[in-house]
């Protein structure tokens, strides 16, 4: 391709203000759709990660009215796809510790740790080698109650050199179990126990928060029993069953029902599918609206442009340009405009994404909120727009240049036709932008109200 042809296209775009209007409208629509694609894909990925990695999404309650806990545990452990069976009272405890590094308040969660529940440590001891009074914590440790908020201060994260071998003092409240006591909730004593962090695990593997530490199952049982909240563990007949994969949950449920268990229909933690579907539908509708709007806007823009340049096309034919050469020149101009829109949209998208990632969804960055994998989808989406545009462009140009040159040069475009073409572009652009913004606002209001 001749450099002069490309440079002429760029010059024409640069010097013609109406090109910048269309670039601005297409950029806005592309940015919106790219944001939708990004959130749609990351949302899917996040849900998929959560469901597949976090064992809470694969854990549910079972109950057998005739079996003791001991008997049920023995029986359930033999069932295919069951990773672990344990008493829900020992599953986890939110607790305050003496850690006050970097002004963190020491809030952490201790979990019932067995080989099947804890990822292999990346530093120090693993769960199977753990001794009593030892614990395994996340390698990016953040023991603070702000962990449940959107933002965490990354500068305060306790990294491995600081956390390994750290002695953590856990302080558990022991409530008065006498139900007749008048001052039951104020009558609290404390049980304190020291643990040493001897191993670090990657909490992104099982999607735990950054303040969740595992201790030996025996230590957990002892702590919970000492804290006096369970009176008789053997009489407690609800048990937690952890399944190896999310797709095996139904099969396991069926087996357990056949064995005479009452099985809870929901897992211990589950995602609100309505919310997921709402987000997916919003994203899909916006993407479809963008494609239709872009099609209508580009169709009218191209129509208007080609009609206005009709006589110039005739001159090019008179100068010896073939039909294909004219299509190349005109399409190149359109392609350049679309590529400029695409580049600006991608840059805007990246900037918006970085802002959202670092300032709003900061806490979730460790699960891999990502844009790089979406580039392929952006390109696919952009390709649809390009193919549609080229089709319209070449059809419109051919409609004109298939006439004889003298006809092309003689026919005049009246002013009202020019005006109405411009009005259609403005109307469609404005309508689609207003529609998308209104739609997003309505959906957000709907989600907020539902919550």
């Amino acid at each position: 391709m001749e450099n002069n042809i490309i440079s002429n296209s760029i010059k024409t775009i640069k010097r013609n203000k109406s090109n910048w209007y269309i670039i601005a409208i297409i950029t806005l629509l592309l940015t919106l759709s790219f944001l939708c694609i990004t959130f749609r894909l990351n949302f899917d990925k996040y849900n998929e990660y959560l469901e597949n990695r976090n064992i809470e999404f694969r854990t549910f309650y079972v109950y057998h009215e005739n079996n003791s806990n001991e008997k049920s545990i023995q029986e359930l452990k033999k069932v295919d796809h069951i990773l672990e069976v344990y008493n829900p009272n020992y599953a986890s405890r939110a607790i305050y510790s003496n850690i006050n590094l970097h002004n963190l308040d020491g809030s952490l969660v201790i979990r019932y740790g067995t080989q099947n529940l804890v990822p292999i440590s990346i530093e120090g001891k693993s769960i199977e080698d753990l001794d009593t009074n030892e614990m395994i914590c996340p390698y990016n440790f953040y023991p603070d109650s702000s962990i449940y908020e959107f933002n965490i201060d990354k500068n305060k994260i306790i990294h491995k050199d600081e956390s390994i071998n750290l002695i953590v003092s856990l302080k558990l409240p022991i409530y008065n179990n006498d139900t007749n006591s008048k001052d039951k909730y104020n009558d609290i004593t404390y049980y304190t126990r020291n643990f040493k962090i001897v191993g670090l695990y990657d909490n992104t593997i099982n999607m735990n928060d950054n303040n969740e530490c595992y201790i030996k199952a025996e230590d957990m049982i002892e702590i919970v029993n000492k804290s006096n909240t369970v009176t008789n563990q053997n009489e407690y007949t609800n048990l937690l069953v952890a399944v190896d994969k999310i797709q095996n949950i139904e099969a396991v449920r069926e087996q357990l029902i056949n064995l005479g268990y009452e099985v809870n229909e929901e897992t211990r933690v589950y995602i609100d599918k309505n919310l997921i579907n709402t987000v997916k539908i919003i994203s899909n509708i916006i993407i479809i609206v963008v494609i239709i709007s872009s099609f209508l806007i580009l169709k009218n823009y191209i129509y208007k442009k080609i009609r206005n340049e009709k006589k110039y096309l005739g001159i090019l034919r008179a100068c010896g340009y073939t039909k294909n050469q004219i299509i190349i020149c005109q399409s190149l101009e359109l392609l350049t405009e679309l590529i400029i829109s695409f580049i600006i949209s991608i840059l805007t998208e990246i900037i918006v994404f970085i802002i959202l990632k670092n300032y709003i969804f900061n806490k979730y960055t460790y699960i891999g909120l990502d844009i790089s994998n979406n580039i392929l989808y952006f390109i696919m989406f952009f390709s649809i727009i390009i193919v549609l545009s080229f089709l319209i462009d070449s059809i419109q140009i051919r409609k004109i240049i298939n006439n004889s040159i003298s006809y092309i040069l003689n026919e005049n475009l009246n002013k009202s036709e020019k005006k109405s073409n411009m009005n259609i572009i403005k109307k469609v652009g404005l309508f689609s932008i207003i529609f998308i913004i209104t739609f997003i606002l309505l959906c957000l209001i709907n989600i907020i109200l539902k919550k």
Partner: protein
Amino acid sequence: MNKDIIKLTNLVKDYNTLNKKIEVLKKINYSFDKGKFYAIKGHSGSGKSTLVKILGLMDNPTSGKYLLFNNEVSKLSDKLSSYYRMKHIGFIFQEYNLNPYLNAIENVIVPMLFNAEISKKERKEKAKELLKKVGLENRLTHFPSDLSGGEQQRVAIARSLANSPDILIADEPTGNLDKANEKIIFKLLKEMSNEGKCVIVVSHSDEVNLYSDICLELDNGKLKEVNHGK
């Protein structure tokens, strides 16, 4: 040596309307030579523009022969007729039809963009040279909106000369210009014919008689030489 570069034999052009067939050109036989300035005159609707568009390969005759450098060109494919137009014919119109977003040099370069015989470096130099030739050396980077009508038409003339055509066809080139600019344009076209090009001009103006070598009149579909009373 045969100086004929265009030879028309029994050239006919009809237009079909709803009810009848209109014969615009009736069996025209004529030859155009190199280095001559032809003025074609005739009343409105006589078929002058139709004739020059056929000569410029922008329209096809209904029947007859059109020989360009002894090649029959009346029924060429789009690609070939485009090639002939680029290589041999320069066209000037009443309306200048310059690209408003390109400056004078860039507008003159446009016809050369797909001409493989002119290198990228040569294009700009040639455009400058042509604009200098039409007296616009001080307007090289001006945009059409900054130029007067006469200047725009001179840019259009420079553009028509970009690929060094042998034939220059002008259809009412001074139709939108005042007398002073009209003289400048005809003088320029005369210079082109003196340089060996075949210049064919359609004009209503009597001024063209002063510059043309041969005056032709198209009357009732027939082309004939007339005394132009120079």
